[in-house]
């Protein structure tokens, strides 16, 4: 995924941009390291193996965390009170404890005595260690498979399914894989991101997407395993670690061997009105899990261009990518796990629109040479004219090939109309396949002159990004978000949903998962 430099970028400018991103991001990372959230704590329980839901469909992890919080608060984390209770109460498993606790039949305490703490912490570590072991095993299984089957050459073909019914999604995903998809993403139902719990079981009634549940993950991964065997190549599965349950979904993704997760540091804030603090804390934890699981994250800068103008706001994409890179690295993600997002969203009526797109795409390619960039297709300017849509998607594919993008989310000619039909996807793949075959190597002939239109535009966008980063570093990221810097949408630091799920860590806070994660994969329980 290395790109030959064609734009004559000044390395000094890129360095300066990264320094500024670090200045803007550092206080946020500090915040994440000193706070926890209800979902982080539920993720701990999930990694310890607590599954299932009560008869109302409310997961036991929610019941248990709520019970702990009610009685002793979450400042010390959920692990100490829970494993303390398991050790001192009836010997029983987590599920029994959760059932009893939600019936009000358990008294929790934060163990105070050093040995009680040590005992509870050790038990907790053992418990979540099993979860991490499963994540590690999944990672190794994936790596072994990839070693044997090899990886497709970039750009990888990324397709979505979005029927709302896992049992319709499955044959569609398999059809997509057979038709050439390297990555299949199952889009989520509209409501899920604002649910403060992860639904259970296989689901068949989502709107414009299917719920992210552990069971759905399992079913789809198994279906793709079948088709991977059939095809002799490994088909990756993607879902969304996003919304109020970002940490838990990251954990479930690791447990069920998902391969990529949508996971942005600001998407929930801007597009779901989730509280900024909540989001930044959750994203940090979820990225630690992703790092361990070998999952490639996909960031969401493309979305900005659906509400802001793709030419005017081009530099905001770059600023956000630099922030996502900073936060990702801070959480332990390798550059090869940073599927930074961007998009082909310029109004096709704009003169030179294709050259502008290519300038932007090449800029991002050269700024992040080791990242498997995720390039998103036109959406905003897709109308009901399916022929025009098919055409625009072809030029998106061409821009992807010409600038060496890592992941190509395949555009649908019916983007302006409905979630994809089976045939839309098949036609979209034919489109990519033609472009990849006919134009492979065309990048060799693409040499924008150093002071030509393309290189000049790329440098201009980078300069604008640096100027914006200067302001953000100055005023702070929360202020910048409140000012509507991204996607033309402003969000206050204390507004939005889910702030009540944020808890400052007390001195004795213990999180066996972060403990193990930060110790690195070598240290075992």
């Amino acid at each position, binding site marked *: 995924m290395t790109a030959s430099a064609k734009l004559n970028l000044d390395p000094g400018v890129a360095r300066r941009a990264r320094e500024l991103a670090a200045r803007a991001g550092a206080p946020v990372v500090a915040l994440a390291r000193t706070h926890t959230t209800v979902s982080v704590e539920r993720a701990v329980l999930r990694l310890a193996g607590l599954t299932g839901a009560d008869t109302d469909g409310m997961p036991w992890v929610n019941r248990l965390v709520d019970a702990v919080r009610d009685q002793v608060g979450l400042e010390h984390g959920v692990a100490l009170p829970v494993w303390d209770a398991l050790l001192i109460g009836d010997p029983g498993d987590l599920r029994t404890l959760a059932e009893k606790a939600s019936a009000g039949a358990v008294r929790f305490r934060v163990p105070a005595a050093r040995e009680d703490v040590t005992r509870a912490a050790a038990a907790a570590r053992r418990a979540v260690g099993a979860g991490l072991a499963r994540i590690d095993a999944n990672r190794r299984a994936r790596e072994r498979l990839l070693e044997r089957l090899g990886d497709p050459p970039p750009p990888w073909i990324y397709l979505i399914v*979005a029927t*709302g019914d896992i049992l319709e999604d499955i*044959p569609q995903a*398999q*059809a997509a894989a*057979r*038709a050439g998809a390297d990555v299949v993403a199952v889009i989520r*139902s*509209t*409501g899920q*991101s*604002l649910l403060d719990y992860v639904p259970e079981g296989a689901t068949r*009634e989502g*709107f*414009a997407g299917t719920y992210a549940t552990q069971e759905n993950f399992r079913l789809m991964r198994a279906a793709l395993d079948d088709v991977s065997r059939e095809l002799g190549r490994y088909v990756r599965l993607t879902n969304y670690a996003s919304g109020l349950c970002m940490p838990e979904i990251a954990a479930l993704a690791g447990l069920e061997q998902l391969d990529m997760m949508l996971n942005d540091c600001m998407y929930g804030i801007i*597009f*779901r*009105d989730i509280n900024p603090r909540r989001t930044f804390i959750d994203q940090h934890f979820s990225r630690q899990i992703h790092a361990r699981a070998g999952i490639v994250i996909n960031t969401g800068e493309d979305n900005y261009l*659906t*509400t802001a103008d793709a030419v005017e706001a081009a530099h905001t994409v770059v600023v956000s990518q630099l922030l996502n890179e900073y936060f990702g690295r801070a959480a332990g993600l390798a550059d090869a796990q940073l599927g930074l997002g961007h998009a082909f969203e310029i109004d096709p009526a704009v003169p030179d629109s294709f050259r502008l797109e290519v300038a932007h795409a090449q800029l991002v390619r050269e700024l992040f040479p080791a990242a498997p960039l995720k390039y998103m297709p036109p959406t905003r300017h897709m109308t009901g004219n399916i022929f025009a849509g098919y055409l625009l998607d072809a030029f998106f594919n061409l821009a992807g090939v010409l600038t060496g993008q890592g992941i190509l989310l395949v555009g649908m000619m019916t983007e302006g109309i*409905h*979630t994809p*039909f*089976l*045939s839309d996807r*098949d*036609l979209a793949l034919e489109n990519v396949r033609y472009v990849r075959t006919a134009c492979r190597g065309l990048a060799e002939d693409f040499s924008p002159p150093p002071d030509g239109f393309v290189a000049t535009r790329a440098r201009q966008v980078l300069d604008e990004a640096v100027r914006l980063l200067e302001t953000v570093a100055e005023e702070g990221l929360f202020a910048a978000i409140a000012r509507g810097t991204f996607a033309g949408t402003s969000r206050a630091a204390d507004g939005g949903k889910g702030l009540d799920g944020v808890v400052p860590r007390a001195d004795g806070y213990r999180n066996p998962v972060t403990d193990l994660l930060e110790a690195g994969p070598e240290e075992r329980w």
Partner: protein
Amino acid sequence: MVTETVSDEARPSPAAQIREGRTGEGARIVRPYGDTTGDGMVQLSFTLPVPAGTEDDRARAEGAALQLARAMGLEAAMVVHTKAIPPSFAFFVVYGRVRHRVDMSRVTVRERDYPLLSVAEANLAVRSTLGRTIVLVGATVGTDAHTVGLDAILNVKGFAGEKGLEAYRAFRVVNLGAQVEAAALVARAEAERADAILVSQVVTQRDAHLQAVREVVAATRTAWPPGERPLLVAGGPRFDPAAVADLGVDRVFCKGTTPREVASYVVSALVARLQRTPS
């Protein structure tokens, strides 16, 4: 070879030579046009859940496609493209002539039943008839998170070169954004003593938009006695304007709506209400 001699005068405009109604201008009965008046040509594409991988399967699949085309009224239908989508689907492109005729006199177009007002006219009408500011409460309800359409109508910035409703002195706009529950929207409308409630819905899969609007309608029923609830307007790219009665709202706006249309409608409707109910 049949030829038809047209008199050899010095270049008359050929338009004049085209038989009356050839291109359908003013014609009452029209048929689809491929390249000849009245040829009835249409293009179809669809997928059937049938395999088409082998020669035999493909023949059966194409037979099925033709059966469907016939049911749709196509004559001399040709399956010009068949693509097997493993394991058991097939996509088709079909061309053919439809028998059906379109009777233009039976096309009923909902004419705009309110005058299109300029910003100044709207402001004036409100001041002179209602004598106070109109309160509008808008939201994308349910789980739908799309706000661009709602904002296009409400925000000052507006849409298609027209200012949004916030820019009208006559309106006070409360824009609640997206993913608002129906009950919350109605509660806020009550609290703000709203004159009109504006609901946006963009996601339509499984008729999500209809369901969401119906929830708002139901919530208004409990909040206000019949006849007293605020004006209820729904908008989004895929509403059927004819569904107003069925949905239980006062008006539906579709793809391409501009703020001015909405402002004009709201003002006219509220003025009409005032005149109806001499409160």
